[in-house]
């Protein structure tokens, strides 16, 4: 596999998508919004009652951190959809497939193109979130809560794995639909299982502690491998040209 080819394809896709303001807005807006919204909730939410109680504050901060797993499951959808369905719509796939690149190189390039902006947006949002949270909780806790091991697992293990899962799902759905919006909407459904985990933790089914996070990461990694196999079987020249809608 020639990684240079994948990188060239990824850079081209990023260049194309940067000019699509609606796509760029979707990718940037959600992490930024949540990174500011959560600290505001902490700062103003407990004011009437004289501040959020210590143990509940820690639970709340862990819950908020989980959103940085949900975000990467949502935001690659519009990019991945443009990257593949957009290429179908512009009817440029045939020409791309006629170049001396392998199916794997093209697929990897498309995945990188969705991965990089989404992970940058996630990390940017998480950085702002951590700085602001530390700013508003330091007085009460007496120490900087972030970064910590759980947040490291979220950002450096779960977020990339969730992102990959979302990208694989997008590639699979892109082969079945011929409309960017539909592909994006179907692809972003990957956030549902992560919302389910969040709700389960909220009702006390389990806590999102270090061990749970590692177990979830393991399960997501297995799902990543499974969906990767499906997406590579879907992303084959002949299928793309003769069977894709």
């Amino acid at each position, binding site marked *: 596999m020639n990684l240079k080819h994948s990188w060239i394809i990824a850079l081209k896709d990023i260049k194309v998508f940067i000019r699509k303001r609606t796509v760029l807005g979707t990718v940037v807006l959600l992490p930024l919004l949540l990174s500011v919204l959560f600290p505001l909730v902490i700062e103003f939410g407990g004011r009437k009652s004289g501040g959020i109680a210590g143990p509940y504050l820690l639970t709340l901060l862990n819950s908020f951190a989980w959103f940085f797993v949900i975000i990467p499951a949502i935001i690659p959808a519009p990019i991945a959809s443009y990257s593949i369905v957009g290429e179908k719509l512009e009817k440029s796939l*045939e*020409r*791309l497939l*006629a170049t001396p*690149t*392998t199916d794997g190189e093209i697929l990897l390039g498309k995945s990188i193109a969705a991965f990089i902006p989404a992970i940058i947006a996630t990390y940017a949002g998480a950085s702002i979130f951590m700085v602001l949270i530390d700013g508003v909780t330091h007085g009460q806790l007496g120490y900087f809560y972030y970064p910590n091991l759980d947040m490291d697992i979220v950002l450096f293990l779960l977020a990339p794995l969730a992102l990959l899962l979302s990208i694989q799902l997008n590639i699979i759905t892109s082969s079945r639909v011929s409309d960017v919006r539909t592909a994006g909407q179907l692809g972003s459904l990957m956030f549902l299982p992560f919302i389910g985990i969040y709700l389960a933790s909220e009702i006390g089914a389990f806590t999102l502690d270090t061990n749970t996070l590692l177990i979830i990461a393991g399960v997501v990694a297995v799902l990543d491998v499974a969906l990767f196999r499906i997406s590579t079987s879907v992303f084959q020249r002949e299928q793309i040209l003769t069977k894709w809608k």
Partner: protein
Amino acid sequence: MIETENLTKKFDGLTAVDGVTFRVEEGEVFGFLGPNGAGKTTTVRMLCCLISKTSGTAKIAGYEVGNGADSLRIRRLIGLVPENVGLYEGLTAYDNLDFYGKLYDRTESQRKESIAALLKMLELWEKKDVPVATFSKGMKQKLAIALALVHDPQILFMDEPTANLDPEAAKTVRDFILDLKKQKKTIFLNTHNLDEAQRICDRIAILNTTLRAIGTPEELERSVRGRVTVIQLEQSNAAVLDAVKKLGLGDVSAEGNKLTISVADPEKNNAIILDAVFRAGGRIQSVNVVGSTLEDAYLKLVREREKV
């Protein structure tokens, strides 16, 4: 340069291309004519290693189509102008060309040189930094051809390159193909524009799932019924008809004052025919030699069921 033998493609039991055998020489402009659904695009896709063949063999510059390692080598040697221009509308003309140049592993200086040359040749240089979305259809088609040439391929596959273009843009594209021919590029041209095929192709193959005929445009025209001599008489005359029939040079028919004689070689036989007409008392108003057209050949051949 391009060789196929019994090349066949079936999709879920439906035969799209059936046992096609032909050879295209280096530097030749080879036209592939056929109606919609004849298998022209499927053949090009097989030759460009985009889809697999069901059976038969095909070779491009000695490399075998369908062999994994050879497929990448073939794709390096060829350029494809697909039926749909397939441009990145949000990118500039230069960025589109640069992207493909990079995928063919051209160095930066090679890319700069070939992009400038192509854009200038196609009169797009002034628009190099303009997003392709603002281009006219003709400009997009020219850029699509430039994209296929950015790596200086030996063989160019073009699928309906002038379809949907206005006459002026179509002429520009045709002239450009003729320029490429002068550069000794091998060009495989899919088209159902008979006039275009006749004007620019050295040889033409007529396809309708099976290959119906191959030859130069002139050979195909003659393959239908040869040429006929048409004599317009002042008055119809049974004696003239008998006299010409007695010559035994070919089928003779009369319609009003017009005599039509199928002759293998009008240049040689017309003098004999006219002499017979004079001797039988016929007075001639005009004599014409009429050949069948490529359109006649095409229509006859695509309707034939038998394989050639």
